[in-house]
Structures are given as C-alpha cells and as structure tokens.
C-alpha cells in the first residue's frame, strides 16, 4: 500500500463518517419538535466524548507522523550519501548525475537558477515518492533511500510559467549487489 493509498482510504472514511452523521441528523430533523434544551444537553454530553477522542487521536497521529522527522536535517550532512546536485531552470532540470544506487541514501541538493519550482520524484509506478521546493538563493536538502530499481521521472510541482507542465527529466535507480534489501 503506497502512502497515497493510505491517505485516500483515511480520507474516504473520514468523509463518509461526516456524511453519515449529516444523513442521520437530516433523517431525524422532522416530526414533532423535541425540546431544544433536552436535545442540547444530550448532544453536549455526547460531544465531550468524541472531542476527547479527537484530541487523543490528534496527539497520537502527531507523535507517530513526526518521528522520525520527515524532513532531512538541513545542516548535518549524511556521511556516505550519494550526492545529486539539482538546479531548476525555466524550463528544464539539471541533474549532476542520472544514476544512483538502490538501498543507499541519496542526498539531493535542490536549488533554482530563476523562479520557484517544485522538485518532485515520480516512481516507476508514476506515483510521487518524495518532493521538495527548488528556490532561488536557497538549497533544500532532500534525503531518500530508493528501494525499487527503475526509471524515476522528475516533474515540476511549483507553477513556473509557460512550459511548467513540460519541465520533465529522469534518472535511474540501479540495483547494487552490495545493497541491503
């Protein structure tokens, strides 16, 4: 299951849950009016529970999704990483190398020669693997270890003018005999 599939599933469940609550209430909106005070008292009692549940869920998800921290440390360099310098231009990508090894961390140093661009890496299945912004006068470090060999497409994910959608490149991830699975 890709991260996208997980996100999609959770979203659909969440929206469905909201929809069910609305449908339930709308279906029970008519008839003889119940006393507003009574409905309110009960609704607020119920609310306390799911409010607490949401809080607990939020704290748990925050904890789980921030450890390890998903953005690479920008100062500490990773020893032994394969380094790829990336410079974005209107409208092409300049990569210092087009082949990296699987199973071994890659550090992309991403910057731009002109406007903001978005450096997005699409896997062999055409899903985004990781991305970062390419900005003039800044270098964003992006560290990723590729598992799956194959051709990875680079697309621009920050609107940069007329040929933004045509701004593509690619590199290859090769399996190495020494690579850990």
């Amino acid at each position, binding site marked *: 299951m890709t991260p996208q599939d997980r*996100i999609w599933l*959770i979203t659909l469940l969440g929206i469905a849950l909201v929809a069910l609550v609305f449908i339930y209430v709308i279906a029970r*909106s008519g008839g003889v009016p*119940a006393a507003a005070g009574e409905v309110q008292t009960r609704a607020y009692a119920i609310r306390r529970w799911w409010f607490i549940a949401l809080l607990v869920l939020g704290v748990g998800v925050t904890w789980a999704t*921030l450890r390890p921290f998903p953005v690479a440390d920008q100062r500490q360099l990773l020893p032994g990483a394969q380094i790829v310098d990336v410079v974005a231009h209107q409208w092409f990508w300049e990569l210092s190398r087009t082949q990296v090894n699987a199973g071994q961390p890659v550090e992309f140093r991403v910057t731009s020669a002109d406007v903001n661009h978005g450096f997005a890496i699409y896997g062999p299945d055409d899903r985004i693997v990781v*991305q970062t912004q390419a*900005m003039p*006068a800044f270098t964003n470090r992006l560290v990723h270890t590729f598992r799956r060999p194959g051709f990875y497409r680079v697309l621009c994910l920050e609107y940069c*003018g007329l040929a933004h959608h045509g701004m593509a490149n690619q590199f290859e991830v090769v399996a190495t005999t020494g690579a850990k699975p």
Partner: protein
Amino acid sequence: MNAVNTASVVHPANESLTGAERVVLNLYIISALLVFVVMMLIGLIMRMAQGTWLNVPPNIFYELMTAHGAGMVGTMGLASCAVMWFFLRKYVRLHLAMFAANYVLFMLGALAILAAVFIGGYAGAWTFLYPLPVHSMGQWSVNAAALFMIGYLLIGVGFLLFYLDAMLGIVRTYGNLARGLGLNRLFGGEIDKTHPPAVVASTMVVIVNSLGILGGAIVLVMSLINAYVPSLTLDALLTKNLIYFFGHVFINATIYMAVIAVYELLPRFSGRAWGVSRPFLWAWAASTVMVLIVYPHHLLMDNVMPHWMLVMGQIISYTSGLPVFVVTAYGALTNVYRSGIRWSLPARLVVLSMFGWAAGIVPAIIDGTISANLVMHNTQWVPGHFHFYLLLGVLPMVLALMFHLVDARKVSSDGVGRAGLPVYLIGGLIFVGAFLAAGHVSAPRRFAAHLPQWVPYDRAGSIGAALVILAMLLFTGYILGGLLGASDNAPAADAAR
C-alpha cells in the same frame, strides 16, 4: 414556530433595507453571481482542456487559471462581505458609504486584474509568487505584472475601509474588540446569551483579515518596488511566507464572514435559538489565533524553513479543525436534530454548507501532515480539498443569503431548490471527487496538459463541473429575477418588512 409569526421570524423588521442599501447590496450580489458563473465556465474550460476535450494553448490556459484563481478568491471575499454587512448592521452602526466604497474599489481592482491578464498576458497565478511575476521569460511584461498587483492593492484598500468601519462600529457598541469577540467571558462570568454570533465572527474577521491584508500589502509593495528597481532583490523565502500568510488568511476569512449566514438563518427555520456559549467563544478565540499562525502548512516542502514552524504548521492544521467540527458543524446539527425544521432552500443551503465545510477539511487536514504533504503537495489533491469547502461550503452560505433576500420578495424558492440543489450537490461531489482521486494518483495541479493516465479523472471532473454550472445558472437566473423583478408581496406587506 407557528404559522402566524413565521414571516416576521424569517424576515425580521430590523433587516429591512432602505432604497440606497438595497441598491448597493444588489450591486454586490449581482456582480458576484455573474463573476461566479463566468469563472466557473473558465474552470470548466480548464478541466476540459486537461481532459483533451478542448484544445487550449498553454499560455491561454495559464491566463485562465490566473483569472479563475484571483477572480474566485476575490469575488468570494466580496460576496461574503455582503453577508457580514447584511447581518452585522443590525447590531452595530455601519456606514453605507464604506460598504459602497469597498464595492467601487473592488471593481476598479478587478478591472486592473482583467486587463493585466487578458490584455497584458499576465499569467503568474493568483499567488504572484516572487520572482515569477517579473521573470516570465517574455510571456508578459513587468507592467502587466505591476498592473495585476495594483489591482490587488485597490481591492485590499476597499476591504480595509469596510473592516475599519466595522471595527469602529463594534468598538462603539461593545467598548472594544475583545468584548466583541467575547474574550471577557472565556474564563468565567455570566454568558450573555444575547450576544450575537454575527458580532463574534465579524470581530474575528476584522482582526485577522486586516492583518492578512496588511501582510499582503507589504509583499505587494515590495514586489512592485522590485519590479521597477530590480537591483533591490527580495528574499524568495520571506516573500513566500508573506504571500501564503496573506492568501491563507484572506480565503479563510471568506468562510468566517459567510458562516454568519448559518448562525443567523438556521435558527429561523429550525425554531431553535443558536446563541453563544462558552465553547462557542473559545472556538472563535482559538480560531482567531490559529488562522494567523497555521499558514506554514503551505511551506511544508520548503526544507530550509525552521523546522519548528513546520511542526507548528502540522499541529495547528489539526487543531484548526476542532472549532469547525466541535462547535459550528455539530452546533448546526444539534440545532436541526428533531427540530421539525422547515426545509426552505436557505435552510437546505446552510446545512449543505456545513457538510461541505466539515467534509472538505478532512482531506485538507490530512494534507497538513508533513509526511502526507510529501506525496500530496501541489497535486490535484489540493484543488480537491479547497474546492470541496469553497464550492460546497462557502458558496452555499452566500447563496443562502441571496435566496433569503429573494424569498422576502417572492412566494418561495422551494421549487428552484428542489430542482437545482441535488444537481449542484451531485455535480459538486463528482467534481471535487475527481480532483481528489487524481491527487491520489499524483496528477499535479496547475498543469496545462496531462499525461494520458490522468485524462479520465479530468473528464469525470468536467462532467461534474458542467452539472454544477447548470444548477448555478438556474440559481442565478432565479435570484436575478427575484431581486430585479417586481415583488410578489402586496405593497403593504413589503412596507411592513
């Protein structure tokens, strides 16, 4: 609610409009509706172009995208100002001249923006992210970019005038803004149940959106200076921060203005009061702070940002959802549950808006998670979630006020609602669902041309959009006729209102 007092409950006397007020309000409403329809058609053209059903050259596509983004955001701001003005004026003294000045400045700004885009060829998107406006590779001139920004400044000044007037009115009636927001009742003391939710929401908006617009003005002035004195370069990260701060606050302020229609109108049909409570005041106080500091969730992929800001962006994204779910949406449902509500069209629209807002922030909140943003940022997931709460949330709030006004003059909009609303809802769900589904398979946003595997989503989205537009045309025709045509009511009844 009994039949005898229904009319005076739904259309209370203190909401009647003087002739001059009616003219200005009608100008707001009619302009907003016409722009909405045109911008929706532009949206449909974009979606069909992505789906290869239409052949649109990229320069035109990006001009349309710029016009659609700026036009929709600005007009939603204008329309929700009308909602705020209409209800707030019952509680505090507002000056019609300021409300009218906002309209005039908006129109001047809109003119500048349209000229910049369709004559000057400016296509740097509504976010004018530095340095793209001044670095178009020959697609448009620096003058076109400057004209676009001047258009924004004009609109910003108009909003500030309107907010200043509202601020003065609130201070004059309640002593200060903190009391308008109900801060004095957060920790104790008797809750004044007659304190209007409309005042709480308006106070929040005048605070946050004045700051938001000021942030926008600063970065616009910086960008304008840089446009003509390029040696004064700007910091790309600082401008990005300012732009997303401004953009986030501004578009969210439209929701907080428009939601006043929900607080005001729903109780009239459910027959149950919806007053302020301590959780309500807490929710709005918290939202005031959160809407100002949540914007780093637009910069989660800017790895050079201080990482504590990214963490804040994620956490505040989560907590921002709480007031919406816990107080507003749940409050609306509590108000409706077993109330014997009369399902007039405005009542249906406000309940739809609550659904659109609550459901739409689900994908938004998830996208505020850094590790999710890593694979969803700037895919069509993003237009998926914001169209969800703008098209199915805010626009229905605004439409609810419009139909409410028409209902005061006409027999009843129930019929047009029965015909149009299901089409609007189903079309809207298909339209936003197609965006979200495309985001799920990593289709990028803001692409003039799509890879073949994304085209089916584009086509499904186009069909949904066409349904929305169909319903919107019906609504627009009915509202225009209702506001401009003769009133059905006997003159005596009209005068009584």
